[in-house]
């Protein structure tokens, strides 16, 4: 195995040429996105540098308290991000369901993955706990974000069909079924699609990172397969919880549509 090339400062700076080229192209083409590109690049850099230092500190002094603290911060950030990214106003009850689904869905899959699949010891080993938690939470966050927009949009745009079904004697579950199924599909399809293209169309980020850092591709692939299945489980469980509880917030106790 070749030794890892440690990137020098000038090499890191050279990578920013991509940003400069992109900004130049958007400027020449009159696409008003330079500001967003610059902010995203700066944010990414600062966030990753800070994360790097925090991870070094945590890895050197593993502590269950810090590991849990990081998990809590990730969960809070993801729930906040989902709510912020939702295009329409959502009810406080739906916000609670987002938080509940994220926490129950991701934590149960995370614990199963770490304790049963990888079998880490101690259970809070930050080297495994934190990156895996990040991947499960990040992907579940994207799933719920897609699902919530489709659910809210569907309930509003197809209100007359839902009410039409209620008039014919449907339960709220039956009346909202098409919309709930559609929201579920749209939430998990990106994960399914990425699994289908994986290894052929692209090499996933985690695996690429491991290979670049000198780990055998076979080991990297083993981890990637396990993590991908963990992500699938977490996204699916989180989204199922969300859509199955979420649609109920559009009805009251008299099975009347609230919107």
């Amino acid at each position, binding site marked *: 195995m070749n030794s890892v090339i440690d990137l020098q400062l000038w090499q890191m700076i050279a990578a920013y040429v991509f940003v400069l080229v992109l900004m130049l192209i958007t400027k020449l083409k009159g696409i008003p996105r330079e500001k967003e590109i610059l902010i995203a690049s700066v944010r990414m850099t600062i966030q990753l540098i800070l994360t790097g230092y925090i991870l070094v500190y945590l890895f050197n002094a593993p502590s269950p308290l810090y590991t849990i603290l990081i998990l809590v911060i990730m969960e809070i950030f993801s729930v906040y991000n989902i709510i912020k990214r939702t295009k329409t106003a959502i009810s406080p009850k739906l916000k609670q369901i987002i938080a509940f689904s994220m926490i129950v869905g991701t934590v149960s899959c995370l614990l199963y993955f770490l304790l049963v699949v990888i079998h880490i010891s101690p259970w809070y080993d930050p080297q495994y706990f934190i990156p895996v938690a990040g991947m499960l939470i990040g992907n579940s966050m994207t799933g719920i974000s897609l699902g919530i927009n489709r659910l809210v949009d569907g309930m509003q745009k197809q209100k*007359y*069909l839902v*009410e*039409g*079904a*209620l*008039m*014919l*004697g*449907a*339960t709220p579950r*039956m*009346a909202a079924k098409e919309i709930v199924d559609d929201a579920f599909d749209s939430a998990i399809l990106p994960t399914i699609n990425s699994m289908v293209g994986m290894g052929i169309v692209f090499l996933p980020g985690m695996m690429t990172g491991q290979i670049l850092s000198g780990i055998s591709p076979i080991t990297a692939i083993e981890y990637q397969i396990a993590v991908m299945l963990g992500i699938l489980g977490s996204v699916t469980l989180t989204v199922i919880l969300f859509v199955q509880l979420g649609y109920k917030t559009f009805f009251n106790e*008299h*099975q*009347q*549509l609230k919107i």
Partner: protein
Amino acid sequence: MFSLNNVRFKNILDIKHLKVPSNKVTCIVGESGSGKSTLLRLLNNLISCDSGEISFNDRPLSTINSVELRRTIVTLSQQPVIFPGTVKDNLLIGLKFAEKPLVDEEKLRQILRMVSLSKELYEDSDKLSGGEKQRLALARVILLDPEVFLLDEPSSALDEETERIIVEMLVAYTKDTNKTLIMVTHSKKVAKDYSDNIIEINQGKVVNYTGDQV
């Protein structure tokens, strides 16, 4: 059957006292925006009144399971609700929602004949005209065989002749099967010619009641 006492809904309806008898044809008439459709939605518990009480067979609606109620009292909205799919899909979806046994195609064709809709079962329902959609939605409600029909202008998109045929069929069917028909209509002539009772609503209030005193 239905009994309303001091029922208020926003500033749309204000009904002091109203009784609607069972096994009769009752028409609700009034200007547009007078609260007729709101009254139907209240009776079916699609919305709840702000104050007062509505009872069905001496039981307050608030104590009846809404889904069970809506399977007993089926509403047809003024704008027909057509689900994506064929004519057959649209007929059967009502039975599926109400968790009733499905019927064969011969029965479906018979129902289509009842509402004078000469369409094939496998035709795309999206391609039907407004009047055809209205009759398809009506056929679906008849297929459900409920105790009470709540129909909101079931013939508004039909020409005069078809309207007469449909209303006559509905009235005859209601009488033959001993059911209750409550129908909102814009036509005072239809109300006068076919109903046992007429409730006239103006600006959310019952201004006239003709027929059986219950």
